[in-house]
């Protein structure tokens, strides 16, 4: 894959290469954060010095369906030893799906000094780079976070209803089977979490992983991404866009692509997503 700087991204500084990470392993101003779907992956071996941020235990409120609050984020920041000046580099399994989710949640608290390692674990592993099992510990830091700011990059259901009424663009990043409503649950396991299948009216289907090169997990070039989102689906950089999936994790990957790589400045992630919309009474659904 070509160098990040040569791919035409609007904000290339939001991505770092595996080489860059290897050169900054001992940099005290950089904190590597691994976020995975599979809870066994980090303990089985991670980049030296990387800490784990788990999407269920660390990023979500344990009682309500919501993200952690300011105090929770400050406690997390202290635990992983970062200050507001630390450059946090996220990476993980599944083509950085969960890394982008963590990146997005950190942005809710204004921690914008953040990067994604292009290619994630897959590329690091393919390059034969070192993985260790030692769990690093860092001295607790002082971290003062602002209150969570949901308005700019997060959408709620009433806002999505208004968005639909206005005919504004939505991107459904789930699989084609989920989008069509063909697949709602596994055979013999009917409670997948949604009572209705289909998609939000007007949403275009762009499965999230189309944005990456499957061979090494790196992001496609800006031209290749524009071909998908603009030529194929008709988005334009000035559009007000809502992205969603089932709980807002896969769509945070697409949010990263649209905002950081293609430079869209008004994209919100509807994290209620299909587990909320597919259970709401009376909302419109398309199949």
């Amino acid at each position, binding site marked *: 894959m070509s160098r990040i700087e040569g791919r035409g991204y609007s904000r290339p500084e939001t991505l770092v290469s595996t080489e860059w990470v290897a050169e900054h392993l001992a940099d005290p101003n950089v904190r590597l954060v691994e976020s995975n779907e599979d809870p066994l992956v980090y303990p089985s071996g991670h980049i030296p010095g990387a800490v784990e941020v788990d999407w269920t235990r660390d990023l979500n409120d344990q009682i309500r369906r919501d993200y952690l609050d300011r105090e929770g984020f400050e406690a997390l920041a202290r635990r992983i030893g970062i200050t507001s000046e630390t450059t946090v580099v996220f990476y993980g*399994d599944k083509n950085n799906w969960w890394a982008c989710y963590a990146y997005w949640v950190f942005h809710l608290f204004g921690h914008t000094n953040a990067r994604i390692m292009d290619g994630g674990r897959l590329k690091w592993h393919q390059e034969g780079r070192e993985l260790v099992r030692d769990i690093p510990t860092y001295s607790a830091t002082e971290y003062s976070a602002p209150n969570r700011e949901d308005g700019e990059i997060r959408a709620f259901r009433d806002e999505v209803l208004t968005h639909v009424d206005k005919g504004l663009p939505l991107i459904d990043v789930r699989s084609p089977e989920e989008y069509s409503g063909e697949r709602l649950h596994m055979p013999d396991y009917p409670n997948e979490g949604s009572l209705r299948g289909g998609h939000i009216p007007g949403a275009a289907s762009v499965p999230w992983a189309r944005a990456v090169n499957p061979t090494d997990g790196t992001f496609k070039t800006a031209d290749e991404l524009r071909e998908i989102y603009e030529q194929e689906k008709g988005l334009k950089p000035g559009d007000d866009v809502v992205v969603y999936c089932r709980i807002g994790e896969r769509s945070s990957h697409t949010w990263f692509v649209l905002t950081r790589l293609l430079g869209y400045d008004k994209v919100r992630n509807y994290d209620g997503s299909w587990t909320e919309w597919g259970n709401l009474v009376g909302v419109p659904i398309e199949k």
Partner: protein
Amino acid sequence: MSRNVDTRYPEKLQDLLDTLSLMDRTGRIQLLIDIAERFESVPSDVAERPFAEEHQVPACESEAYVWVRRLEDGRPKFYFAVENPQGISAKAMAVILDDSLSGRDPKEIAGVSSDVVYEVFGRELSMGKSMGLMGMVSMVTHSAKKLLEPRS
């Protein structure tokens, strides 16, 4: 966890669940990683790449495959492939299913609930991950049910 007289799962599987239930999260994860490291992919005399789609576990993003063969006594022996090198949970699940269900009475296997995934890995699995692992269990139990059907 005390053993009920009427356990929910075949004995060896129930023993593992009992062991896991006594461990904290770190211990459980370490044990599951150790189990995953024992994973051996399907031997070539059972299946060779490219694997047939009918053996692929639906909804499993670790690209897991399941095969069943009858042992001499007619009981099933399960084989697995996990094509994603980072599919550690899928590998652990494959080892657990083979260890605990191969060679058992198909009736017992057919009754194993896919909820066993949560008892093995805990409730913190993502929906996608749990669906994939449950799919592996469902493929195994479905295979056992087919063995119970009268041979034509």
